[in-house]
């Protein structure tokens, strides 16, 4: 008996343990992935559902981010466009614009003459026929007024607008940034909405992974029972299911990334064409580096937590009745 026991103790040495632990994890990770491949259709369906669920908020994020960059480009446009009365001629406008630059509210003034405006109009395209019908130029002179940073706030701009309208040459003044600010507020709202949607769909992903893992546990009941009888610890039994959850998360997150990136690529061409019509160099951008990291990280975490919940509910460990 004594010899039996001493022989038994000649197991792994203490120094080998971290290596064994690591290789065990690595092996479990690979085995779990192999098991997912053994049932390709159900696995693919779970991954697809997770992917689509995560792609929705990610796509919404990409959309709002793109709109934001686009709106950022418009920040360069004038805050106020001052349309002059028809009587005013170019020299008049020149003098006025020089006057305006001395105002503390005004950073600089850009003069657009009638000819320039017509030229620009023509370049936009789509109006050629209409322009041919016209004999004399109907466009007014426009002063594009850029405010100094201290006067860029909406309420101050409004004061400036009123002041400009009191000028005898002024016909009409349009505030260009007000709608931009409204637009940005709407973007903020949509972005918070997408965060909320992401949260809801995240709960959905938890439930999907949880249910998949629950079925997996039921399918492998016998294996679990026998492993427990031969001395498997609770951690050993749980490990493959947690890895399966993490794999589902990773594959689902990758699917989401692919879906979003593919959509961006498909929309790239039409968006560029639209942008060129507005003479903009705007390029649609996909999920950035950080957002991709967050999407993948969140999906892995969701997969892990989902399987962890299922494992805790359906695996009781080696406990005797």
């Amino acid at each position, binding site marked *: *008996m*004594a*010899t*039996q*026991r001493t*022989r*038994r103790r000649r*197991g*792994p040495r203490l120094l*080998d343990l971290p290596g*064994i*632990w690591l*290789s*065990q994890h690595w092996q479990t990770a690979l085995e779990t992935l192999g098991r997912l491949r053994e049932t390709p259709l159900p696995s693919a369906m779970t991954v697809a559902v997770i992917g689509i669920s995560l792609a929705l908020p990610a796509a919404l994020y990409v959309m709002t981010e793109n709109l934001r960059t686009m709106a950022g480009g418009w920040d360069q446009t004038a805050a106020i466009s001052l349309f002059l009365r028809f009587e005013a001629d170019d020299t008049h406008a020149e003098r006025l614009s020089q006057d305006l630059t001395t105002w503390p509210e005004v950073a600089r003034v850009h003069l657009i003459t009638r000819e320039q405006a017509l030229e620009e109009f023509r370049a936009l395209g789509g109006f050629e026929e209409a322009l041919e019908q016209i004999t004399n130029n109907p466009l007014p002179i426009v002063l594009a007024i850029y405010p100094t940073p201290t006067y860029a706030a909406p309420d101050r701009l409004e004061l400036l607008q009123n002041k400009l309208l009191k000028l005898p040459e002024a016909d009409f003044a349009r505030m260009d940034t007000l709608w931009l600010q409204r637009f940005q507020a709407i973007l903020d709202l949509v972005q918070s909405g997408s965060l909320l949607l992401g949260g809801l769909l995240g709960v959905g992903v938890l439930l999907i992974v949880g249910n998949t893992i629950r079925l997996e546990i039921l399918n492998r009941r*016998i*294996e679990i*029972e*026998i*492993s*427990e*009888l*031969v*001395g*498997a*610890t*609770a951690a*050993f039994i749980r490990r493959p299911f947690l890895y399966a959850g993490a794999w589902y998360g990773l594959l689902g997150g990758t699917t989401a990334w692919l879906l979003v990136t593919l959509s961006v690529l498909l929309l790239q061409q039409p968006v560029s064409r639209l942008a060129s019509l507005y003479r903009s160099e705007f390029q649609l951008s996909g999920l950035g580096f950080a957002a991709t990291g967050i999407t993948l990280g969140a999906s892995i975490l969701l997969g892990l937590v989902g399987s962890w919940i299922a494992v805790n509910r359906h695996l009781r*460990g*080696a*406990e*005797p*009745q």
Partner: protein
Amino acid sequence: MIRFEHVFKRYPERGEALGNVNFEIQAGEMVFLTGHSGAGKSTMLRLIGLIERPTRGQILVNGRNLATLPRRQIPYYRREVGMIFQDHRLLPDRSVFDNVALPLVVAGVGQKEIGRRVRAALDQVGLLSRERATPVALSGGEQQRVGIARAVVGRPPVLVADEPTGNLDPDLSREIFELFERFHYVGVTLLIATHDLNLVQSMRHRTITLDAGRLVNDTGDW
């Protein structure tokens, strides 16, 4: 090595399965456990394997008191007790090798060591040539030998078997029992539940008899 002290086991549906059972098995003994079906043999083995806990009383195995064994320690305890079942409890979708390797895999033994020890265990039960087969391709006697190889591969000091020859013909049963005797000779403590009285009598080992949950006869050391 195995000691029962005033052990009672009561099931809510079936009533008393074991009543005031006392006995001790020394290290290295080979003991048969006999009795009719429903006499409590399986219950006793399930208590030793910590698949169930007694309603009352104490069980000590290999120096451990099962009543006070913390839950986290149960897996490590089970590695010291090899269990053999009448229905083998093999995994049908795994090879013979993988089935036998399971106790070593769960214990975190390295790959090379697993290969060495699994082949040694399969050699002991005479199935070295079948390591790649799946259990369904084997006969009943061979399947039980795989079950035995799995029970001994971790070199546990204690082996318990519940009707290991219940589904086998007399010749195969004798083979299995002779295999057990070989483990007995190298110092393993064995407790084998069986109702094959002819074999038990021919083999001349200590025999404990249960009847309706009570220990009615103990031949003592032969």
